[in-house]
């Protein structure tokens, strides 16, 4: 069994830097982590490998520094790692990203594709379903439990007020939520192997055979036309000092304004 895991490296701070020309995030120079939901996806793939036997192939698209995310994934237990990196991939929206990732996925004979539900920088939750559509395979999003029975998966999909139990044949794409598992820390041996014995393979647009017009900013149907910082200032009346007086003043105002 082959399992592909698509991960994303995301900035781990609230520090925001936007390119004034392309109006997209500048990733260089910002400390980065594996996106949390993607780590759950990776953990589940490794658990399946340990229980049933499988090859876990981890793939990311990003700048050269995204290699560190792949090394961490290898240290956790992934078998192979691929970094899709090319200037023409930059500035991709979710449609162009899914399109690029689908070209990579098609190079493998896969049974399961795992993604995280959503990334903490964009919060869109779109790439997983868009990738499944590009590959014409079924999808189950918001996955919180996976069981394997032969060529079929029994999956619990979270809903706002409960969950569904879904049966689906492989190949299938699943998106993981944090309830799925608790990701492991890499072992010392794992870290050693990730840097000494395993390889991160670089994949360019030419390697994928994609038309540069179809990927990155050029291949993106959506355009960010402006970004602003939110302003929600109010002229607040702030009480300080004696607690009893503060409370009496506050309640008096609320009564005057018919709030309570």
């Amino acid at each position, binding site marked *: 069994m082959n399992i592909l895991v698509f991960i994303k490296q995301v900035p781990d701070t609230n520090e925001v830097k936007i390119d004034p020309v392309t109006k997209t995030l500048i990733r260089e120079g910002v400390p980065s982590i594996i996106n949390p939901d993607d780590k759950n996806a990776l953990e589940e793939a490794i658990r399946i490998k340990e229980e049933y036997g499988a090859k876990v192939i981890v793939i990311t698209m990003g700048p050269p520094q995204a290699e560190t995310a792949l090394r961490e994934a290898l240290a956790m237990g992934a078998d192979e790692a691929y970094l899709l990196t090319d200037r023409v991939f930059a500035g991709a929206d979710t449609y162009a990203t899914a399109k690029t990732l689908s070209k990579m996925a098609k190079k493998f004979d896969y049974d399961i594709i795992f993604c995280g539900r959503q990334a903490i920088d964009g919060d869109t939750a*779109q790439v997983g379903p868009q990738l499944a*559509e590009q590959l014409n395979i079924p999808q189950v999003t918001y996955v919180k439990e996976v069981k394997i029975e032969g060529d079929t998966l029994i999956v619990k999909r979270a809903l706002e007020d409960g969950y569904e139990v879904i049966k689906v044949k492989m190949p299938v794409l699943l998106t993981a939520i944090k309830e799925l598992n608790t990701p492991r820390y890499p072992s010392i041996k794992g870290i050693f192997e990730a840097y000494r014995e395993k390889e991160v393979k670089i994949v360019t647009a030419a390697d994928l055979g994609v038309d540069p017009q179809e990927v990155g900013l050029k291949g993106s149907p959506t355009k960010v036309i402006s970004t602003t910082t939110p302003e929600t200032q109010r002229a607040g009346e702030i009480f300080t000092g004696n607690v009893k007086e503060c409370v009496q003043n506050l309640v008096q105002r609320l009564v005057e304004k018919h709030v309570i």
Partner: protein
Amino acid sequence: MNEYKDIWVFAEQREQRLMNVSLEILGEARKLADKKGVKACAVLVGYGVKGLADELIKYGADVVYVIDNPLLKNYTTEGYAKVIADLANEIKPEVILYGATYIGRDLAPRIASRLHTGLTADCTGLDIDENGLLLQIRPAFGGNLIATIICPERRPQMATVRPGVMKKAPKDGKREGEIIEIQANIKEGDIRTQIFDIIKEAKSKVNIEEADIIVSGGRGVGGAEGFKLIQQLADALGGVVGASRAAVDAGWISSDHQVGQTGKTVRPKLYVACGISGAIQHIAGMGNAKTIIAINKNPDAPIFKVADYGIVGDLFKVIPALIEEIKRIKNNELA
């Protein structure tokens, strides 16, 4: 591109009941359609759901497309994506809006990819620009930025919209519209996932999105024990308990109480933030409350900048005094 007309709303129903967010975005679609001089249409998919079409008209739809078929009884990605994408290919709407629910966020990207068009997630604002394009406004990077996004060259323009952000139009019992039944071109083999159970979990019935009064606790509450005090204040005010992400991540309270960019968007009449510093991601979820009160021991906490009233002090002293004062006032009213 000119052949694309009208603004569609995916009218999400579960067990033959319309989701609130669908009526909210229908209210917004109504405004956008009036601005462009086109129709606002609802797409109603399910089995035995035709009866809901009338309600959609009363909430602002000019046309309701009903796709009713036993294979569409429960939501499946492939079943719903197929019938909606087929209809969109045939009738060519200019815009399709979806509620950003666990279903809408599964369905919309699948359809966007099939129609080779753009999709903007979790919008908190929509508008039409001078060229007639849909402006899709959404927070990004945990609410640190507000981005305006367009889809200039592909159609339809598509967006999912956060529940609780848009306002329903007032129900107009006299409103009339057209109901068009569409034959679903679908067979069992089109749906490769099989749902064999839907489990409802008996959660604590907290519905903070509908509450008029919310008392929220954050990191300053200190632990699960501290939330008892928050509950007491909520009880005294006749409200419900909310929480910041910090409190939920710490495991002090369940995530259905969470307010903010990654939680729920609320717009209550009164929001009391206790021990919440006021990270932008929290403010993204409650900044539209009518009245905001902040209680925090740090006078420089950003929450005070968005508050109408604030008390600088230890919440473990302020809240008991506040409860006492509220009870005193309420008892006086009764006397």
